[in-house]
């Protein structure tokens, strides 16, 4: 890109940015949008924390599809994995090993806590899953060999339940006479925890697999 074009591009973007900024300032921002409705229905949702209620119940369908996005990214990365050099990363962070040995269990506990606490305060499956995946990343950095065949096999099995359990819960609520993902009111809390638990595991494994390189699974062949 030549200098003149670059400046023209920058100028154009600046004009657009100012235009958009002035538009944003005109957005009324009055009214409560969906807040009042969320608050009104919160007691029905099975959890006490509004964001979790939206994520897992009111707009649970989005979250369900979001798990599908994760799965899709994994499939896509898998399709691209053929010729990338997958040797583990060089790490000479021996100093960290001790720390990691301490940190990983703590991270697992933190993840579990985040999951559980999500029902009534900030936290939840995504944050917990990310923390768990972070534990895996740390392990990979310090001990490239930890992803033994068996661990991989477990990881492989854990990739799909996030979506599947969500889906089964949704179907079950349909069979019980509701709509898809319409949890029976009295069971909503525990069903959400169930869904979140599996989602967290799958999120963690998926994110870690995306980090670590080639997933070698796929049922043979």
């Amino acid at each position, binding site marked *: 890109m030549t200098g003149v074009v670059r400046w023209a591009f920058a100028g154009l973007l600046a004009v657009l940015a100012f235009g958009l900024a002035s538009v944003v300032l005109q957005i009324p921002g009055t009214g409560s949008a969906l*807040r009042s409705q*969320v608050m009104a229905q919160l007691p029905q949702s099975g959890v006490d924390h509004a*964001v979790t209620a939206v*994520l897992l119940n009111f*707009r649970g369908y989005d*979250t369900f599809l979001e798990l599908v996005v994760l799965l899709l990214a994994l499939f896509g*990365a898998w399709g691209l994995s053929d010729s*990338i050099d997958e040797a583990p990363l060089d790490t000479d962070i021996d100093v960290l090993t001790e720390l990691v040995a301490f940190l990983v269990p703590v991270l697992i506990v933190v993840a579990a806590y985040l999951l559980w606490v999500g029902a009534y305060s900030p936290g939840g499956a995504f944050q917990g899953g990310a923390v768990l995946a972070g534990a895996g990343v740390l392990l990979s950095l310090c001990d490239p060999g930890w992803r033994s065949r068996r661990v991989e096999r477990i990881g492989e099995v854990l990739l799909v339940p996030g979506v599947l359990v969500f889906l089964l819960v949704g179907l079950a609520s349909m069979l019980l006479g509701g709509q898809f993902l319409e949890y029976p009111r009295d069971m909503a809390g525990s069903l959400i925890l169930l869904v979140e638990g599996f989602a967290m595991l799958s999120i963690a494994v998926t994110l870690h697999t995306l980090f670590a390189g080639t997933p070698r699974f796929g049922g043979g062949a």
Partner: protein
Amino acid sequence: MTPAQLYALVGIGLFFVGLYALGVRQHLLPRILALNIMGSGVFVVLVALARRSDGVDPVPHAMVITGIVVAVSATALALRLMLRVAHATGSATLTDTGDE
């Protein structure tokens, strides 16, 4: 101006900084980062304006969490694709490879 509006403007700024980099940078890694920063800008706009007269609207928060996960998924795929492109063409840029 309210703080919410300030952050919304920052979001717009991030969006356009990212857009500029996406258009100007050649290397794929900054371009992928640029998309992430554009995404952050959009998320900021979504959340900043969620501060309402009577409290915070949680729905945009949920949307942004969804968006963050979608973004990381896309980023993971993009990075992998970048590696393959770099392998195949010898450079992590989108120079046209010509016909056959």
